[in-house]
């Protein structure tokens, strides 16, 4: 499958980008994303507010996520169709990594 220029720029994804997109399968604002990612990874990943702001701005510009509402200077985001497609591609890539890893794990001493 031929990847677009934008898809190539995001794939393979950084952990931060992956979890931000994954969080936006539901409508959330920035701080909600931070809390969700921390909870999903049991505290392993704590997104910095500056990092998250930069990522959200870039993803919004690239139309991977969209603003669905705004409440008291907080934007509420959700994945767009392009964002969903990109996330599916990454999940599929990670799935292949996992399957090959578990298939050949027996060969490890």
């Amino acid at each position, binding site marked *: 499958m031929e990847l677009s220029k934008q898809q190539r720029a995001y794939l393979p994804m950084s952990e931060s980008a992956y979890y931000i997109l994954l969080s936006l399968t539901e409508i959330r604002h920035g*701080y909600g994303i931070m809390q969700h990612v921390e909870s999903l990874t049991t505290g392993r990943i704590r997104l910095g*507010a500056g*990092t998250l*702001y*930069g990522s959200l701005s870039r993803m919004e510009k690239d139309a991977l996520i969209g603003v669905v509402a705004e409440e008291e200077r907080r934007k509420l985001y959700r994945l767009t169709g392009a964002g969903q497609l990109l996330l599916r591609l990454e999940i599929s890539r990670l799935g292949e990594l996992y399957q090959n890893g578990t298939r050949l794990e027996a060969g490890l001493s």
Partner: protein
Amino acid sequence: MMSKQETATCWFGWWGWYTDKLEAWLETKALQGWHVTGADQAVMRFRFERGESRRVRYCADYQEKLDPHYLTLCQDAGWELVSMGYSWYIWRMEYAGARPEVISDLDSLLDRNVRLRRLLAGAVLPGLPAIVLLLTSGALQRLPFSKYLLGLVTVAVTFDLFCLIAISRQNQMLRKRKG
């Protein structure tokens, strides 16, 4: 009777592409009981107030434009805005366990440095042809204080180029760390 609050003012020079030194200095000051109450526009002259020793994380972040959503997000995450000037924001947060970060990955640092480089390149590079023309046409020599003007322009361009090279080197190091 209220006791007079002990205050101090200190200068600290730092580079925008390497904020660790500034952040560590402010953190050490807080441990010594000196807490920032504000800074000048250039974010180099800091005002402190004496208080109790506290473990405080300070972070310097660069944003090209003032966006209220950025401020709200940082405040929601528990950061207190200490100072802002020339697109630099100084945030702080008291902590006990893991040291909190405003920038939590190398990609964001690389991105910040790219924005800084764009700013510095935009400040001088478009004017370079005009400077070259001034020097080669002899027009500069006819201007009053031409020697001083030439010196000033040379210093500004050299400093700008130094910053651009330093940022590129810093980004090379960050890319190596990223692997």
